[in-house]
């Protein structure tokens, strides 16, 4: 074949124009286009567990209660009212008249089926149903749940999007199972990737992994119809590309723009709001790691935490657009008002290490090589490395791929790690359940690596039970004590709570950040 330069050039120009021309211009249409790097692990409410899942599930399924825009109080959703007994063990919900997208009514049996499936399928969000002992229908519109121990956070838990009510009949017809055998017998996960069975304002139209998530309006929605007929979440990997797509009008909303990039947006047609978030990034110490041999005691961990320059960290990771955070419970959650963030004390840190005979301590940090909530983990860990070097501790950095990091976490490959956390509902209990140094809890296993006695804090389990058996100020006080204990543990050291950037075209209204549900799509409209 001979080469025809002109043909080649024409082909190139054609290819080039395909890149320049936006596939669909977002403005002035009935379609809302959102730019996001999607982290979908599943679209099955009982198995999904990701930030994208939070707003997808909220749009397609409805929970019994939901979080008000103040991000604290619970308001009715599918349940029009609810009752809680005195010791927080029985919860009764009265359902309102609602219908699923196929027109069938939402009934007590669907709620019970959904909660049992969530519990029995043993997926990532199944912990929300921990302790559920019975679910019974009092009548067709009333459902009662019983838990094995007082749990004042149960109500908050059922505002998590993963507890959205599924149309039991439709799901069962497509392989879903809710009884004890669900973990193996349920084969509906792939069906949920192409279909939805909820009562929410939207329905799943199509999903292509790493490319696009398309929702269409539920035309028979029982509530107020959403403003957009279609919502398209389009995969755009990084903040800079998202900002460019937003400026050119290719998308209406960009979900993952960091504050540095937000500052560089010059288009007058784009609105950016920087607001505090409930997300945080932290380093975790793993005293049970190989080669540590009891070196990482609580005093040493505390000394290492004192070496960190938290103000500098805030500046270097997010350009000052964030908050310091004391305990591994986000600022603004119950019990955090009275906690004081750590501060740097290099002299104290040096002294403690010298007394412990660890003046030439060498540590390794294994962490995912990623950029989350605008925080570049490589930058963050280089800052930690510099701060540790100032007290004579050598920190070797091992940035890892996600797969390798997940494999090595819990095996004690490295004594230091770094990662992030975002809430699933409003409540401090989820943080104790994850970070608390209580026998059998996730981070005890990770930090102790088989030697739980290295890290378990006996005070915490009583305080946790106390917090769950009370509400209001009493619970807040217990959570504050738990926060103080977790700070004493010095296993989880929160570094930064990054601010969130809401970035959208000027003609878009109703964009807000929700602690449970990320971005409530049904509230968004175009002027």
């Amino acid at each position, binding site marked *: 074949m001979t080469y025809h330069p002109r043909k080649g050039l024409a082909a190139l120009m054609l290819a080039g124009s395909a890149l320049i021309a936006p596939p669909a211009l977002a403005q002035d249409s009935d379609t809302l286009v959102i730019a996001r790097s999607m982290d979908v692990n599943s679209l099955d409410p009982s198995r999904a567990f990701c930030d994208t899942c939070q707003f997808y599930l909220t749009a397609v399924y409805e929970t019994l209660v939901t979080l008000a825009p103040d991000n604290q109080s619970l308001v009715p959703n599918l349940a029009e009212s609810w009752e809680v007994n005195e010791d927080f063990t029985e919860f009764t919900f009265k359902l309102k008249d609602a219908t699923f997208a196929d027109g069938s009514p939402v009934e007590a049996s669907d709620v019970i089926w959904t909660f049992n499936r969530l519990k029995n399928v043993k997926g990532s969000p199944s912990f929300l149903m921990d302790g559920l002992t019975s679910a019974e229908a009092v009548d067709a519109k009333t459902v009662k749940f019983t838990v094995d121990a007082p749990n004042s956070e149960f109500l908050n838990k059922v505002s998590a999007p993963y507890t959205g009510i599924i149309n039991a009949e439709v799901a069962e017809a497509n392989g879903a199972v809710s009884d004890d055998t669900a973990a193996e017998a349920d084969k509906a996960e792939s069906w949920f990737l192409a279909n939805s069975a909820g009562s929410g304002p939207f329905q799943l139209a199509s999903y292509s992994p790493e490319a696009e998530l398309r929702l269409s309006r539920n035309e028979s929605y029982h509530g107020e119809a959403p403003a957009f007929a279609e919502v398209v979440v389009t995969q755009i990997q*990084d*903040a*800079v590309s998202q900002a460019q797509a937003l400026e050119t009008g290719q998308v209406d909303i960009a979900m993952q723009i960091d504050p*540095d*990039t937000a500052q*560089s947006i010059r288009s007058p047609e784009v609105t950016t709001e920087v607001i505090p978030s409930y997300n945080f990034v932290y380093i975790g110490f793993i005293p049970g790691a190989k080669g540590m041999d009891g070196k990482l005691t609580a005093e040493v961990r505390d000394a290492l935490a004192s070496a960190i320059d938290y103000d500098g960290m805030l*500046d*270097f990771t997010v*350009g000052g657009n964030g908050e310091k955070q004391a305990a591994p419970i986000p600022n603004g959650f119950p019990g955090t008002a009275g906690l004081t963030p750590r501060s740097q004390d290099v002299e104290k840190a040096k002294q403690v290490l010298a007394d412990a005979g660890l003046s030439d301590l060498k540590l390794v940090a294994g962490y995912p*090589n990623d*950029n989350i909530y605008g925080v*570049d983990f*490589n*930058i963050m*860990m*280089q*800052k930690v*490395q*510099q701060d540790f070097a100032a007290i004579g501790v050598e920190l*070797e*950095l*091992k*940035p*890892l*791929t996600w797969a*390798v990091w997940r494999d090595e976490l819990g095996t004690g490959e490295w004594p230091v790690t770094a990662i992030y956390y975002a809430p699933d509902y409003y409540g401090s209990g989820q943080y104790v359940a994850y970070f608390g140094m209580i026998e059998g809890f996730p981070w005890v296993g990770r930090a102790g690596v088989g030697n739980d006695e290295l890290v378990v804090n006996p005070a915490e389990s009583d305080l946790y039970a106390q917090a769950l058996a009370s509400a209001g100020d009493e619970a807040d006080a217990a959570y504050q004590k738990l926060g103080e204990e977790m700070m004493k543990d010095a296993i989880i050291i929160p570094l930064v709570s990054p601010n969130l950037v809401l970035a959208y075209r000027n003609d878009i209204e109703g964009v807000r950040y929700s602690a449970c549900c990320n971005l409530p799509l049904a509230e968004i409209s175009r002027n």
Partner: protein
Amino acid sequence: MAMTSPDTAGLPPRRRFAGSRDLWRRLPVTAKIGALMLLFWVLTVLTVSLWPLADPLAMVGRRLQPPSGEHWLGTDALGRDVFARTMYGAIWSIPIAFVVVACAVVIGSTLGALAGFFGGWNDSIIMRLVDVTVSFPPILLAMAVAAVLGPGLANASIAMVIVWWPIYARLMRAQVLEKRENEHVEAAVAGGAGRLRVLGVHILPLCWAPTLINATMDFGQVVLLAASLSFIGLGATPPSPEWGSMISEGATKFYSWWIAFGPGMAILSVVLATSFLGDGLRDLFDRRSA
């Protein structure tokens, strides 16, 4: 004419090794520019610690400052001097490229020469191994090896040697196969020379030109691949001022263009320099393929 190898057929034989000054004079201008650029980087590697530069690992100013008189290429996200980091980056990239190319040449040429000279099952085994290795895209194979071994420049170098040796095996085998049939080799065999002597003294000295040319050109490509591996997080670990990882940092702070500019220009200059020089050397030594 019988003893003249095809290599020298078109050149006046006496002038070929008439001294390095003569060699320099006959190099094309682009190759001279390439050689000077490469010399600059080699000198940088050797002397950069003596230069009056900022500490490449220390915070020396506010973060994300654009280029100024004080910081010629601005500062990065941790407030480190990008110009100093770019210059120090040569300490990582240049020696690594040198070691990788040297290892690939030694391993590849040895195996290729053995395969070509001895033939038979030696040839089959070695060349099938070559075929298997080159059937993978280089970056993919290097990524796989580096991912298995874990991040770090040493592991990345091993990965790159694994990717690169087959090229030299093929080159050397082709040369040896050709030169093996020369009459002076037959004469040496007839004169009772041992097989290794024939290979080492009568064949190999005639085969080095294509390898040298190829190695020069590959030098830049190795720098590029090392940077690519670091860019995706499989090469240098932080805080090393390796060019690829610096560009990766710059990519997330896209509007602070200067962070990626320095290392980008450095890589560009090395790759261009080796391409120019390689082209020039080929014009000089290997007229046939030019």
